[in-house]
C-alpha cells in the first residue's frame, strides 16, 4: 500500500469506511458538471459507506447526506486518502 497521506487514487478504489478528499473530477457528457453540482468539488470530504450487492453501485457520504454513484462514475473522481481511515481496497 502506498503512503496514505500522499496517495492519489480514484474514488471507486476506496475501502469501506475510508475517508478521502476530492482532488479533481473528470468525466464527459455533463457527468463532470453533475458531479460538481451534487457537491463533488475539490476539497469535499467523502466517506465510502457501502457497495451494492452486485458490487456496484457505491454508497458514499458527502456533506450532510448519502449519495450513490456507479463505479464507472466514481472512477472519474480523484481523491486524496485521509490518513488513518482504512486505505485502498486490495
Amino acid at each position, binding site marked *: 500500500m502506498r503512503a496514505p497521506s500522499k496517495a492519489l487514487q480514484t474514488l471507486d478504489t476506496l475501502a469501506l469506511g475510508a475517508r478521502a478528499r476530492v*482532488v479533481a473530477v*473528470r468525466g464527459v*457528457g455533463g457527468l463532470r458538471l453533475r458531479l*460538481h453540482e451534487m457537491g463533488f468539488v475539490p476539497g469535499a470530504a467523502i466517506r465510502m459507506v457501502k457497495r451494492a*450487492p452486485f458490487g456496484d453501485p457505491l454508497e458514499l*457520504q458527502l456533506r*450532510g447526506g448519502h449519495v450513490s454513484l456507479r463505479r464507472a462514475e466514481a472512477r472519474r473522481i480523484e481523491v486524496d486518502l485521509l490518513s488513518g481511515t482504512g486505505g485502498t481496497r486490495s
Partner: protein
Amino acid sequence: MSLRVALAGNPNVGKTSLFNALTGARQRVGNYAGVTVDVREGPLRAELLPRGAPAITVVDLPGVYSLSPTSEDEAAAYRCLTGASGPPPDLVVVILDAANLGRNLYLVTQLLEQGAPLVLALNMVDVAKEAGLVIEPEALARALGLPVIATIAREGTGLAALVEAIVGAASAPLGATAAALRGRLLAPASAIEGLPAGSDAPSASSSTLAAIPELVAVVDDPARVRWLLAARASGAEELTDASPAEAAALARVRVDLADATSCSLAIRRYHEIDGILEAIGYAARDAAPAMDLSARIDRLVTHRVAGLLVFVAVMALLFNTIFTWAGPLMDAIEAAMSWLSGQVSTALGPGLLTDLITEGVIAGVGNVLVFIPQIALLFLFIGLLEDTGYMARAAFLIDRLMSRVGLHGRAFVPLLSGYACAIPAILGTRTISSYRDRLVTILMIPFMSCSARLPIYVLVIGALFPGERRVGPFSLGGLVLLAMYALSTLSALAVGAIYKRTLLRSPTPPLVLELPPYRLPRVRNTLLQVRDRTMDFVKGAGTVILAMTVILWALLSFPRPPADAPPQRSPIEYSVGGRVGVALEPALAPMGQDFRVGVAILGSFAAREVMVSTLGLVYGIEGSDDDDSSLRAAMRAARDPDTGERRHTPLKGLALMVFFVYACQCMSTLAVVRRETGGWRWPAFMFVTMTALAYVMAVLVYQGGRALGFE
C-alpha cells in the same frame, strides 16, 4: 393584485408537505406549455392569508438539485421560474433541509443569480436538532442577507411566519448582503480555472475562448448565459428554449470550454456556501448525523444478501397488490357495469339503441373504470415507497442489472408492473427523469406478458395441450405457459437494449442518486398524488378508450346479417370486422390461423382477454368468462369440412400464443401512450412494430414447427 409564489427545493426536503400545508386540497396540476413534468399549483389557504394581503397562488416546482438542464425536471423548473411557460413567479420560496444544508444552498445560489426575490424555509430543523446540528435561522438570514423562516412542514409549524415573510419580501429590494453575494456569484468566470488538473491543456487560443463573450453579447442576462452553457456542457441543448440566435451562438462554444466554465462556477458557488456555513458555525463535519437511524436500517435493507431478500419481498408485495388484490375491485366494477347493462336492456327492450348503450357506451365506461384499481394501488405503493425513502434503495440494489439494458434502476418498478397491466405501468414511468429512457421503458412495457394475456394462454393450453401430457415431472401445459412468460421477458429486454442503442440512443444515465434518510410516509400526500394520477388517466386517456370501444362495437355489429342468413353462421361474420377477418385469411394462413381467429384478434383490440369471448361468439357459444370449457371443447372438435383437418392443433395454438406475446392488441395501452408522449406518433409506431413482430414470430413458429414435422 395577486402574488405568484414558486416553491423550489431539492427532492426529499419536504417540499410537497409544505405545498399541501399551504394550499390544502384545492390544488391542481398546472398547465405549462412544453412541460411534461407535473407542476401543481393552488391558492394559498384563506386562513393563512394576513388581513389586507394580496391573494397568493403557490406553484410547486419539480424537486431539483440544480437548475442546470440535465433532465426534464430541471428544464421544467427553469421554464416556470423564468416565465417561459406561463406567468413567472413574483417570488421563490426555497425549502432547505436543515440537516443537509451545504448541498441545499447550491440551489439558493443559482436562484439568487436568477434575481427573483427569495425567501428561505429552513425545514426539518427538528430533525437537525435531534442529530446535534443547531442552526439559528437568524444567523443564516444575516449571513445570506435573505429572510429565513424555520418550518416543520409535516406538522405545519412556521406557516404564518413564512406567509408574512413572503408578503414582506415580494416588494422589498434585495438587501446589501445578498446583493453583494449575487455580485460575487455573477462575476465573469474564467474557463481555465475550471479545467481538471492535469487534463490536456486547453488550446486556449483566443478564438475558442471568444465564443463565450459572443454568447454573452447575444444573451445579455448572465444567469441565462450560465444556464445555456450548462446545457451545452451536458449535451442537453434540446431541453432549452434557446432562440435561434442564442442556439447559433451557443453552438460555437466548444463543449469542453462550456463544461470547464460551468464546473468552475459550481466550484465558486460551493466556495461561497462553505464561507456561509463557516460564518454561521454549521459544523462542517463529514458525518451525516441525520443518517444514523437510516444507516442502521440500511445495514439490513441494502445488505448484500438480506437486502436482496427484502427487495424481492417488497416487489412481490407490490406485484401481488396490482395483480391479485386489485382483482376483487375490478370484478366489482365489471359486475356493476353488467348490472347496469342488464337494467338498460330490461328498460329499453332489445334493439339497436340498447346494444349501442350497453355494448358500446357502458362497456366503454367499464373499460376505463376497470383500470382505476390497479392505477390507484400502484401509485399508492409507489408513493409510499418514495416517501419512506425505500424507492431510492430499490434503485440502488437493482441498478447493476438495469444498467445492462442501459436503463436507470428506477425503470424496474414500471417494468415489473407491466406483468400485471401495461396501463398503470406506463403511467408509472413518470419517475424516470430522462425523456428518452422513459420512452424506451414505455416501448418495453407492452411486451411484458400482462394479466389480460393469461385467459388466452389458459384457453389455448387448456384446449390443445391436455394436462395429462407430461415432460418429466412437469405438465406440458405448464411448461408452455412458462415459455410464454420467458419469451415475453427476454423480448422486452432485447427490445429495450435495441432501442437504447439505435432509435433512442443516449448514454446510460448517470446514477448520482441520493439515498435520503428514512422517514415515515405522509399518507395524505400520497393520496393526493393517487387522486391526481387517477383523474389524469380518466381525463387524458378515458375519452379515447370510450370512443374506441364504441367504434369497435360498431365495426363488429354492422352490417347486420341478412334475414335469410343460415343459422350456423355467426352474425359477427357479416360485420365489417368479420369481413376483414375473412379477407385477412390468406395472410393468417401462414401463421396457421383461420378467419375465426382473425375476427377474434380484431375483437381483442378492445382488450386482449376479449379474444376469448369473441372467439366464443364466432363459435356460437355464449360462455361465461369464468368457464371456457365449452369453447375449449368446440376448438378441439372443430374440423375443416373440406379436408377434415383439425382447425386447431397444438402447433397452431402455439403460434397464436406467440402472436399474443408480441401483438399490441390493446387500445387502452395505445390511448395511454398517446397521453404520456403527447401525440399519436409513438402509439402508432408501437402498434405497427409490435404487430409486424407478432406476425413474423407467429409465422416463424408455425412454419418452423411444420418444417420440423409437427402439425
